[in-house]
């Protein structure tokens, strides 16, 4: 431990005793604001039954209070804000991605199991053409709610309200001549009054064990019966008319004969998404093609933009050359323009029919829709985007090579090409290797160039997933998850994300070893 560190250590905790009252008040107000906001958030989470979010909010709030009200843990006071965001928007999503990759989450399986059961049962409600009908008289309960006086087809008298049906005796009904005045103390509405409250009446559902009774007209109600019922004890859905039982299997209620009920629900399906990549050739072949192209794209982009950048750096690396600064300020422009704009501009320039490149050079090349030309275009544009950076980096690296090395080589009789191969290049490689690896990792997931130029297309024929000729893994993931067409497949997209994690982790591990980042942790 150095002298400095000892001094800092001894002085810890710092003298918070001298903190000014104003600062203290400000701090307390901030904490009170955070707590107030957290209370509001937790209230909502509790009301909505979001236990996970509730626990997370509670933990974060307790951590904030603990850290900022204590006089100790000074480092944490500075680390907590950034860390909370990192946990929430990177660490948690990483874990969540892994979880989703083991589920069938996607079109057809978007709902939770409870939501799906509710939806299935609710959707099975139908009014039977020959179902029971009731003659009704709407009643005002006196407390703002409504109920129905109902006469069944067999002549029995019933009172129906939100809680259900109850039988009535003839003595419960007060009549004025033919007209019903009140039932069981509730005032009967005439047609005019009833029509004014039509919306309320149509919303009124009287539950019965054989289905639901709903108002059809102001004078009639009918039974709507459920076709399905949920049996909570066995976790089965039963078709009431046929008695068929549907059991939950991989996110769908499925009968023994293989009939499925839609919608399904999201469920953990194990390594299915990973298996799909290997077992189904209509998915596997395009996937392997995307994977291979991803590597080729990143390698070509880095190697070629490096070659061009180095070539330019060597061209300008000549003492006495005029205009170097001028060239540099021009070459930096492609690097400075936001890359999403550049990609879109290139898309327009490479357009087959209208693009200026075909017109200016009198070509008829299908730059963006022929598979190989599209790949060529994506790499070309990526070189255009990347070579200024490589040029700047190479210039810096060249200048850091001691000139006496070159002079010594020259005196020893090395030719220009020997000097480059034996002196310049090895030295450059040492300094540039970490940057090249970082650049490879960046281009491996270079979404903007590919997606904004070709959208991943042109499509590969005969593929079951939306894989295109220029798709790299990250654009492929995006299309699986968010591009309509064949539906959203979050589970499969997440599985591919996890595979990208491994590739990126491998690249990073190599680069860590090379840059020896661990040694800089003084």
């Amino acid at each position, binding site marked *: 431990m150095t002298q400095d560190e000892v001094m800092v250590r001894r002085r810890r905790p710092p003298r918070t005793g001298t903190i000014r009252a104003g600062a203290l008040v400000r701090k307390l107000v901030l904490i009170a604001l955070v707590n107030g906001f957290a209370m509001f958030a937790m209230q909502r989470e509790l009301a909505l039954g979001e236990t996970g979010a509730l626990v997370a909010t509670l933990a974060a709030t307790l951590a904030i209070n603990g850290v900022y009200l204590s006089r100790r843990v000074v480092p944490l006071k*500075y680390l907590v804000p950034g860390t909370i*965001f990192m946990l929430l928007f990177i660490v948690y999503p990483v874990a969540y991605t892994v979880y989703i990759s083991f589920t069938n989450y996607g079109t057809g399986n978007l709902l939770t199991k409870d939501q799906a059961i509710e939806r299935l049962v609710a959707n099975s409600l139908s009014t039977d053409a020959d179902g029971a009908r009731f003659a009704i008289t709407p009643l005002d309960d006196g407390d703002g709610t409504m109920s129905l006086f109902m006469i069944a087809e067999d002549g029995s008298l019933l009172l129906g309200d939100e809680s259900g049906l109850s039988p009535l005796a003839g003595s419960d009904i007060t009549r004025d001549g033919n007209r019903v005045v009140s039932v069981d103390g509730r005032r009967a509405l005439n047609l005019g009054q009833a029509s004014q409250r039509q919306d309320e009446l149509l919303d009124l559902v009287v539950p019965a064990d054989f289905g639901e009774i709903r108002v059809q007209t102001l004078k009639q109600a009918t039974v709507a019966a459920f076709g399905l019922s949920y049996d909570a004890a066995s976790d089965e859905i039963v078709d009431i008319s046929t008695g068929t039982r549907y059991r939950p299997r991989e996110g769908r209620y499925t009968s023994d004969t293989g009939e499925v009920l839609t919608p399904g629900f999201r469920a953990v399906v194990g390594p299915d998404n990973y298996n799909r990549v290997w077992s189904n050739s209509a998915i596997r072949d395009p996937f392997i093609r995307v994977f291979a192209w991803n590597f080729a794209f990143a390698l070509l982009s880095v190697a070629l933009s490096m070659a061009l950048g180095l070539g330019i750096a060597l061209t300008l690396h000549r003492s006495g050359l*005029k205009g170097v600064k001028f060239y540099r300020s021009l070459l930096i422009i492609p690097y400075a323009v936001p890359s999403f704009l550049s990609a879109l501009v290139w898309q327009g320039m490479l357009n087959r029919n209208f693009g200026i490149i075909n017109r200016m050079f009198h070509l008829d090349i299908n730059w963006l829709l022929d598979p190989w030309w599209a790949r060529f275009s994506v790499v070309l544009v990526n070189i255009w985007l990347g070579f200024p950076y490589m040029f700047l980096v190479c210039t810096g690296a060249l200048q*850091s090579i001691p000139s006496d090395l070159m002079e010594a080589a020259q005196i020893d009789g090395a030719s220009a090409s020997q000097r480059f191969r034996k002196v310049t290049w090895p030295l450059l490689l040492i300094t540039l290797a970490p940057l090249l690896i970082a650049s490879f990792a960046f281009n491996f997931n270079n979404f903007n160039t590919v997606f904004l130029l070709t959208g991943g297309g042109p499509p590969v024929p005969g593929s079951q997933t939306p894989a295109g000729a220029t798709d790299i893994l990250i654009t492929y993931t995006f299309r699986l998850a968010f591009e309509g067409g064949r539906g959203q497949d979050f589970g499969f997209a997440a599985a591919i994300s996890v595979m990208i994690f491994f590739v990126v982790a491998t690249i990073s591990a190599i680069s860590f070893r090379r840059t020896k980042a661990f040694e800089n942790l003084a």
Partner: protein
Amino acid sequence: MSGHDPTPYRAKRMKPARWFREFGWRHLVMAAVVAFALFPVIVVISASFNPRGGIQSQKLIPSSLTLDNYRALTGDKNVPFYHWMRNTVVISGVAALANTFLSALAAYAFSRMRFRGRRGGLLAILLVQMFPITLLMVAIFLMMQNIGGIFPAVGLGTQMGLILVYMGGALGVNTWLMKGFFDTVPRSLDESALIDGATHWQTFWRIILPLAAPVLAVVAMLGFITAVNEYVLASVLLRDVNDFPLSVGLFRFIDNDFGAEWGPFAAGALLSAVPVVVLFQFLQRFIVSGLTAGAAKE
């Protein structure tokens, strides 16, 4: 310097053939390179001032200069270009400032304090950095959908939600960069402040941050440019055309209709690129020296 020229002095008037062998070809190569580098830029500038018409009618040198495309872009009711521009500035600006601040806080702790888990924390930041938010789009989309169910104000379809997501990447390479800079600020400065009775917060706020202003500015501007370029999450999380930043807005605008909207698109591209390029020219000095420092390491 390169040792290509062993003669102790250069003749003032070189013979043309020798001049070409030594210097001339370099200018020829650079002319070709500059043409390649600037071709799209020239195309866009020219297209934006071309008379109104489709992409087919564009000539590299416009037959006449007009502002029709600019008027068409800003006058189109269905294309809220100014909204997009403002959204880009607000979203990227707020995210960049917040991230710089969060990162500076952490860098101060890592630079000035010794505590258990410090080394682990620095490594964790590097590790987490491996997962850029783009890779997490599926999880973040579904998560924001859930959050929107509880708090609509920050959920799916809100700019606030997008900014919060961008803030997830606050701790990263930038924290290392700032820690490195803070390390070069002499300890004696904060120690004398502490002896004078300043709190650690006052030391950070009044002494370290002002000294680090140039680095903070560079980090903030780089963060701004990164956010301006971000397409994936903005397109996934935002729904309303009036909420889009330029990246999503201009893409949707031109992707439908390259043939007809090329001119107005070029005008929009130019208007959007100019501020960033100007910003970049300010940054150039820092970026070049930063890159060189990185390249010269080891």
